[in-house]
């Protein structure tokens, strides 16, 4: 973002918060359902000092990272195989395409029955959800490699490994990062869905119970924490993606 844009975004956010504060204090908004931002901020500062909340955040972070560490390489590998091995592609690519469009949330009860309400269940479900995004991204990444560049490098004597390192990896990198970023969004969503649906710990579990007990300041504070964390992860991945894709033509 340019400096000008940053200022605008900050001003917009701040303006909305101020408006909300004003409406809440004036009693236009029901404070029991939509407490003032200052109240939420106060709750936020208390929450982040409570050890059990920090533990919950840690549990969620662990589930997210573990699921991603499994789904990203496995999905990428499948994606590459589905392009490079014609037989596997013919067999599974239509299936992957169909399943991509199916909402994965409907499978959640199945995962609970197989794994029980547990951390492995959250990780397995998140892997299942994320996998499709990464496979599809992996396919797109491999197919984006210009065949002509492979021919050129062969004319100039490239070995198989050199073709992978000098052509495939740099050509695929931006699309891989993009699909990793999208995969991460699905991954976080899947973990939180699992936790809200049924869990013993995790920030999603806290959000669900604060919601049930109508503890609105805590609920909103937790939403802020999750939102900020998700935005940071997303923007960090986007920054790497832009760096690796510097050579892509700017429209």
């Amino acid at each position, binding site marked *: 973002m340019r400096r000008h844009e940053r200022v605008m975004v900050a001003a917009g956010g701040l303006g909305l918060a101020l408006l909300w504060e004003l409406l809440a204090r004036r009693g236009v908004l029901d404070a029991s359902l939509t407490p003032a931002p200052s109240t939420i901020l106060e709750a936020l500062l208390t929450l982040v000092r409570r050890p059990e909340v920090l533990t919950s955040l840690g549990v969620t972070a662990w589930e997210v990272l573990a699921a991603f560490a499994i789904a990203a390489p496995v999905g990428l590998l499948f994606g590459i195989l589905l392009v490079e091995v014609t037989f596997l592609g013919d067999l599974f690519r239509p299936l992957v395409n169909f399943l991509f469009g199916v909402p994965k949330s409907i499978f959640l009860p199945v995962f609970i029955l197989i794994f029980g309400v547990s951390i492995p269940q959250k990780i397995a479900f998140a892997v299942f959800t994320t996998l499709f995004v990464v496979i599809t991204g992996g396919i797109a990444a491999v197919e984006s490699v210009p065949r002509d560049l492979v021919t050129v490098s062969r*004319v*100039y*004597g490239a070995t198989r490994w050199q073709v992978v390192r000098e052509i495939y990896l740099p050509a695929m990198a931006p699309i891989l990062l993009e699909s990793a970023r999208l995969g991460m969004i699905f991954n976080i969503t899947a973990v939180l869905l699992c936790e809200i649906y049924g869990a013993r710990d995790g920030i999603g579990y806290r959000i669900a119970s604060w919601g049930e007990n109508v503890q609105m300041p805590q609920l909103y504070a937790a939403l802020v924490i999750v939102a900020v964390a998700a935005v940071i992860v997303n923007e960090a991945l986007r920054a790497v993606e832009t760096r690796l894709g510097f*050579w892509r033509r700017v429209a």
Partner: protein
Amino acid sequence: MTKTVLSIKGVSHRFGADGAVVPALERIDLEVPDGQFVALVGPSGCGKSTLLSLVAGLRQPSDGTLRCDGERITKPIPRKIGMIFQEANLLPWLSAIDNVAFPLKLRGEPKIERRAAARDMLALTGLTGFEDKLPHQLSGGMKQRVAIARGLVQNPAVLLMDEPFAALDEQTRMLLGDELLRIWSEARKTVLFVTHSLNEAVYLADRIIVLSSRPGRIVDDVAVDLPRPRTFAMTSSERFGVLKERIWQHIRRAERV
């Protein structure tokens, strides 16, 4: 008597297998002496580009042998043969200089040496000052110059050019044609140049090989006896017209079949 750099003996090539065999080239015999500029012309689909890819070592002929500088061509020989395609095919994430240096990188040359060699080639192709530009920052003609510099950077004996100017506009291709002749007269390479353009063939080449329609056979071997350096005025000379007419007759006959 100059030595033969490129020798093609009894080369035939067929595509496909078993039931659906398509013959692409039939019994091609061609000897190219050192430093000669040879244009390959022929009707669409006559196998010109196939012949070039055989010389490049990208495919193996069904029959016959190809040799470059005495060495049998069974795979690409980057030190002896450089190749330029219709599209510049530059690596979009590398600067102009690193694109030119790419063949040397594959060979494992240290960065300083390969960049020095690449800088010289960019100077030869008139791109001094554009070393650090990325491909998308260059015009079509400039990209093709970078590709030519890359083809020359290993100082190969033979330069293969597969319709290198076909994707460019008329003016750019004329200017680049003159540039190519200047580079060729300085670097003294043997050039095998595939083109659809009869004007380009007669204007650039010492010798024009005319292929028939599929399967491609050599139907004429024309010595272009126009003096060098070639000038734009020659393109409207009588001799230029006679040579063009002779080649055109072959192509017209082939296309009617």
